[in-house]
């Protein structure tokens, strides 16, 4: 008995410790759950998935989805960026009602190298990810052996990768000037070292990618693939790049502020002023207009809908051009997020608290409303002492006003059919300006889940790019009585945009500088709330002008007189500060301290 027990015990110990599975196997991970890079680059299907990820990371809109993991976290600290307002509130376009929104940081010159990423450039890290994806695609695509991945497919993938790389680089360029040009994937972290390129080299890198991408991208796609990069989208990117490059901030021998070491000034400007850059910009804009028809893109212009009333505003040409998804005017849009309700993002970035928002709406300043002419093209006088004719004034304004701004007695959506911004009105709390920014909140959002289709490029912009660049290169040119779809002068280009919204032609005989003011005003109105104004006033170096990003900002106090008559009284809701160093972003302090980035001037 004893022996039996002893033997069995010893046997069991031996079995237990050695006879079971091989030692290491017990700890090993089960096979078949790893996806490796080689697997991704083994089939066309997987490469398409990776290209889809390129869009997810590389595409963006002015109204980011808050929980989009692609943008939300800082890889080194893991902290997420959550309080993102629309940049309209950093300019004379508007004022955000929520004090916690980082966008307010611009208004009191609180921008610092330590807070620039949450304040404005929350995509900083995602951008480098998108560039890496593009670089990996370029590096690996040729070696895919799947027969389904034919040469045409590979060419197209490379072109898409280059488009997105150029797109990310453009976003760096417009914020920082010259940037580190990253054209390869870093094999290990020690290699990830790249100084800033000069501004000229940086722009050249963007243009090179654009030129190569144009060749292999299709002109258009079937409806099921709408949203993918087309030739026209690249041309649009190229036009915007050349327009920015030709602008006063970069196209100069002396930058707005000198770098700490003047030898570095070429990182933020060309180092000389060259009018030919405007010519290149005009040509690039013209190229977009010329190629648009081929790609099926056109201005939304139904003559009967140029001046919609409040009742049929949904059909207004201008409203359709920004509200209706996949309309003909859109060249490419960000619609990566899927449908969301008004309580989700991105709509929460637009909805005022009074309408159920949590992140604050943006009210429109009087400074900006003053830019709208009346329907006859006359300047509208807003009396400093106020007046009792607010409703009449609103009625007289440029039809685009009604189609983009939620003013007193107009409509928000079915849940808020009458906007009340008068003192004591439901939607007055937080409405500093007197009216709410309504664009790009689509009426349909009030009724259910809607896909946010925020355009990255819309065709109307390129008429204005053309007009601005051509005016700078050659002057306003000659105006046709009825501006043609294919403008050949700066006058015609602006007038074509005004025509589709029922506005008369610009007066004849404007000088180059008079025309410059008109085209800038036109751009402000036509592209309002679409993430243009902030960048335009910086590249024109006018942000420091009183009432733009600096000085007293005005709104109106509205008092109800009768059911339909209201008085207005202008008042200043605040004074903003702008320092010259704010013409370009500071690089994040932490990134600078890592040792390779030269900081922009004044930071």
């Amino acid at each position, binding site marked *: 008995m004893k022996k039996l027990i002893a033997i069995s*015990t010893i046997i069991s110990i031996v079995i237990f410790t050695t006879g079971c599975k091989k030692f290491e196997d017990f700890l090993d991970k089960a096979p078949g759950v790893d996806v490796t890079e080689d697997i991704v680059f083994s089939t066309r299907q997987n490469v398409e998935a990776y290209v889809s990820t390129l869009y997810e990371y590389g595409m963006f809109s002015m109204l980011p989805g808050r929980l989009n993991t692609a943008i939300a976290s800082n890889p080194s600290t893991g902290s997420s960026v959550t309080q993102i307002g629309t940049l309209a509130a950093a300019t004379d376009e508007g004022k955000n009602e929520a004090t916690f929104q980082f966008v307010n*940081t611009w208004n009191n010159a609180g921008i610092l190298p330590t807070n620039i990423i949450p304040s404005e450039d929350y995509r900083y890290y995602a951008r480098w990810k998108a560039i890496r994806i593009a670089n990996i695609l370029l590096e690996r695509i040729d070696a895919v052996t799947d027969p389904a991945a034919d040469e045409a497919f590979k060419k197209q993938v490379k072109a898409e990768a280059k488009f997105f790389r150029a797109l990310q680089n453009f976003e760096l360029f417009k914020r920082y000037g010259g940037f580190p040009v990253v054209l390869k994937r870093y094999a290990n972290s020690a290699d990830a070292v790249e100084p800033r390129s000069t501004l000229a080299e940086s722009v050249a890198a963007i243009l090179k990618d654009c030129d190569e991408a144009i060749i292999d991208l299709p002109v258009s796609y079937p409806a099921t693939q709408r949203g993918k990069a087309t030739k026209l989208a690249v041309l649009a990117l190229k036009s915007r790049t050349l327009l920015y490059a030709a602008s006063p901030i970069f196209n100069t021998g002396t930058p707005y502020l000198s770098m700490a070491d003047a030898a570095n000034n070429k990182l933020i400007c060309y180092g000389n002023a060259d009018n030919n850059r405007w010519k290149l910009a005009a040509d690039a804009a013209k190229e977009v207009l010329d190629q648009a028809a081929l790609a099926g893109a056109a201005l939304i212009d139904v003559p009967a809908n140029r001046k919609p009333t409040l009742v049929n505003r949904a059909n207004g040409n201008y409203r359709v051009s920004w509200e209706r998804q996949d309309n003909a005017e859109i060249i490419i849009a960000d619609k990566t997020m899927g449908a969301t309700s008004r309580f989700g993002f991105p709509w929460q970035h637009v909805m005022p608290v009074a309408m159920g928002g949590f992140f604050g709406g943006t009210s429109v300043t009087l400074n900006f409303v003053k830019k709208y002419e009346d329907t006859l093209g006359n300047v509208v006088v807003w009396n400093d002492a106020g007046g009792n004719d607010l409703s009449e004034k609103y009625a007289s304004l440029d039809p685009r006003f009604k189609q983009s701004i939620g003013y007193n007695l107009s409509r928000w959506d079915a849940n808020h059919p009458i906007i009340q911004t008068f003192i004591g009105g439901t939607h007055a709390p937080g409405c500093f300006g007197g009216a709410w920014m309504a664009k790009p909140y689509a009426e349909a959002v009030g009724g259910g889940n809607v896909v946010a289709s925020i355009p990255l490029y819309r065709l109307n912009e390129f008429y204005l790019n053309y007009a601005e660049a051509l005016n700078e290169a050659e002057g306003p040119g000659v105006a046709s009585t009825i501006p043609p779809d294919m403008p050949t002068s700066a006058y015609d280009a602006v007038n074509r945009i005004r025509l589709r919204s029922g506005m008369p032609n610009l007066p004849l005989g404007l000088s180059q500088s008079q025309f410059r003011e008109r085209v800038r005003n036109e751009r402000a109105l036509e592209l309002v709330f679409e993430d243009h104004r902030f960048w335009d006033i910086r590249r024109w170096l006018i942000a420091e002008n009183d009432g733009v990003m600096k000085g007293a900002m005005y709104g109106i106090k509205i008092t109800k007189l009768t059911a339909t008559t209201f008085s207005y009284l202008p008042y200043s809701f605040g004074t903003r500060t702008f320092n010259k160093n704010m013409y370009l972003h500071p690089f994040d302090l932490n990134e600078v301290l890592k040792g390779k980035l030269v900081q922009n001037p004044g930071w």
Partner: protein
Amino acid sequence: MRCIGFALFFLLISSQVKSQLKISGIITDEKNQPLQSATVNEKGTANSTATNESGSFHITVRDAKALLVISAIGHISKTITVGQKNVVAVSLVTINQDMDEVVVVGYGTQKKISNTGAQTSMKGALLVQSPAANISNSLVGRLPGLFASQASGEPGNDQSTLRIRGVGTFNGSQEPLVLVDGIQVDNYNNIDANEIENVTILKDASSTAVYGIRGANGVLIITTKRGKVGPAKVSYTFNNAITSFTAIRSQMNSYDYANSFNQALKGDSYVNGSVYMPRYSQSDLDKYKSGEDPVFYPNVDWYKLLLKKSSSQQQHNLNISGGTDKVRYSVSVGLFNQEGLFNSTNLNPEYDAQIKFKRYNFRSNLNFNVTKRFKVAVDMSSQTEQRSGSAANTGGMINSIDASNPTLTPGVVDGKIVVLSLPGNNPISSLYEPGYQREYRNFLNGSLRFDHDLDFITRGLTTHVNLSYQNFNSQRFINRKAGTPTVLNYLAVRQPDGTIAYLPQGTDAQYLFSESIDKNRRITAEMGINYKRKFGNHNVTGLLLYNQLKSIDPDFTFLVPNGYQSYVGRATYDYKSRYLAEVNVAYNGTENFAPGNRFGIFPAFSLGWVASDEKFFPKNNIIGFLKFRGSYGEVGNDQIGSNFLSSNNRFLYRSTAWTFGGGSRFGETATAYNLLGGVVEGRSSNPDLTWERAMKTNLGIEMGFWKKKITLAVDLFNEKRNNILANRQTISSIIGVAIPPENLGKMQNRGYELDLTLNDNFGKFNYQLKGNYSFARNKILYQDEVAPIYAYQARTGQRFGQYFGFIDQGLYNTWEEINDPKRPVYALQNNKIQPGDVRYIDYNNDGKIDNFDQVAIGYSNVPEITYGFSMVGSYKGFSMSVLFQGVSNVSLNYTRRFTTAFIDNPASGAVNYLLDSWTEEKFLAGQVIKFPRFSAGSNSGITSNYQSSTYFLADASYLRLKNVEVGYTYDNPIIKKVGLSSARVFVNANNLYTFSKVYKGIDPENPPTSGNSLPYPLVRTINLGLNLNF
């Protein structure tokens, strides 16, 4: 697993015995008192019995040559020859307790006298003194070296965070390893305190080395009660308690609120350069003050409306234990019932929004002596929990109460939730909006242990096999109405005739139902050989052990089970229990690293010397006992971050793992709009990864004074951790991919512990005074930090979690101070500083107040000093105990709700104490000013006053009267007549009073740490209990 079962088959063998001669007898102790439950065993057989209450026994033995072994707990065993006597009388001598006292160590027990590691323990009886639901909350203040902090008082969710000897790593998991009866568990909080015999923490390398790769953060071992030989003992305990919040804030009333808000706007208008426009007109203020219009000018105290003053808690426990020489049993069943402290929870007749928590505990520990050599233990336990109530997250709820202002809505009018046409979220809706939830959770644990003597091979050799299975299931149901709140809101509208109409907002809808399920299981297997033998004055013990563990949980990353394997060895030697030596080694592996880097050896060595045992040690009455011990060893930590198995930190060594997911959408939205799934590159790999290494040194002295009336233990420790898994911070973001962690971090943690006990009596008044004090300070030695411009801003070289911020010098009080040309320029707020703003020090003297003036301030949020002090006294049937507990060297950084009013949009509420904010009138009148001027601004990046600074960094030290108990025990004959052996009534209380410097309404133990979630406050419990023994 199959091979284990095969092995057990061989071990399941028993034997049979027969008998002939009848013997009876009586067993007494030295004082001639009868000994109950003494064991009488016929030597060499399994034949045995136990004495009854009068100390007598009957046994039938084989023949007159039989030997009887008589043993009783706490007494020296005796062997007698039966001879021709039919009746025997035996007296047993009490053994010297000190020599025989055992302590729990890793994988076993040891004599306390010869233990050389640093460990501390407490008896389960002390846990029962605290009327807390959760045993982790009853450990506070009891054990030197243990820091426990409770983050929430929510019923069923109120466990404490435990740290042993502070924090030793800045990136790895800081959680100690927890074992219940030798089995690693994830959840121990819900064990009924009545089931627990002993709680031990292992602190130094010598005691934790056997846990190798997981021993670096210390080990907590819980031992449950087992049956003892003797007649069945039945014990029933009933507790009925009242709970209330330890600390709760109060809000400003409507008038104060509106008035202060206007002042805030006035101050802010200077900053914004705008014209001051009061939010509330004088007529508004008057109406708030008079309360004439309670619907449209309400004054709601949200705390009163939503939080109750007190709630109730009950606990029943029934314990039956006993045994014979063959079988011993201990069975315990418990019911715990606790209600939350929400108020206004019955607005919807269909459900009760109150949080209710019920827990059913069951444990059965059985021991079988199958043969003389073969013993089996079968342990089963389960904890079944039910939670019900509002599905709202309590952290969000409390935040919502704090965030709502008194003017927002009239709250509840005639049983209706009434709102005004003002934007804002009212918290009473948030209590009902998420619906009603019921959650069931069940933990089921079973373990089987076989012990076999191998003394036929060599004396002192034993072996054991231990198998355990743990199973967890949970199910959560939520009933919620679609699209509308579960309770409708009514909008108050003033009719033209002056009456008020309440219009329902929205229409009622159907309930929707959702269910979520969670489950996991774990299998542990262990096999060991023990050796213990005495050769003259030489005592030798040895242990060889194999242990493996597999956890299966669908939440684990990659859905792959998690495994550990270890080999453990231990050898101890002592000479006359005077010179002690011990070696512990673990060889273990974790799946988290590449083959080749998986397994490591973790050795520890320790020595001890009982100096008082030496001949040359002067015999004196003062120092009767003196022992020195020291240890050095290495342990590991393989976990990066907490809950790493469900995170991206699993399988860190694997080459860049890609995952399918995400992607973009294409197509025209009206017709064909679809997601095209993406694939994402993972973190790049680092195949060289290995575990964190902790090198720990410990020196200890144990002393006994005046015949051990006073005992003192002092431990000094020094720990250095290398190879802390951390991400390089100096890599440029242009790499565009998450970089893998490397074994680069270095950290140091050192400190000391004191444990002092005094036991004495004045006649029949027995008392014990006990105090413990622990200090642990850590320092980050290396972490690849980006070098800051000013060296004083480096985090390296500081303690983990060190706060940084501005140093304040009070407030600016006058414009003269503001306009002083020597005042530094504030980069914050565009230098728009005014009287009532915080005055910061220009630390780097560059004339500017900016981020570079932020320096290390205060401490971290983990206390460096923890201490406890208890007094226990008894006189005849009366007993009483008091426990004080405290922490020090700890800071609290107030979150925005406690420093700032009117934040958020719509404006949040304001805490009442903010009425002590700066105003010019207050300053001129010389009144108390505790806060800067009111401000409605909270742009976190730039608002000057609410920057991280010493102004809002509190000393979070506290001293708390943690626990008090008074009881009386009856064991007189009257009680015995009704079948009871004793009865005890007692009153005890937890969290009675706290001395602290933090703002009123904040419990320094569970301060809020995040801006949008506030903890459900801790509760004070006052309990009346009854204990009956049969």
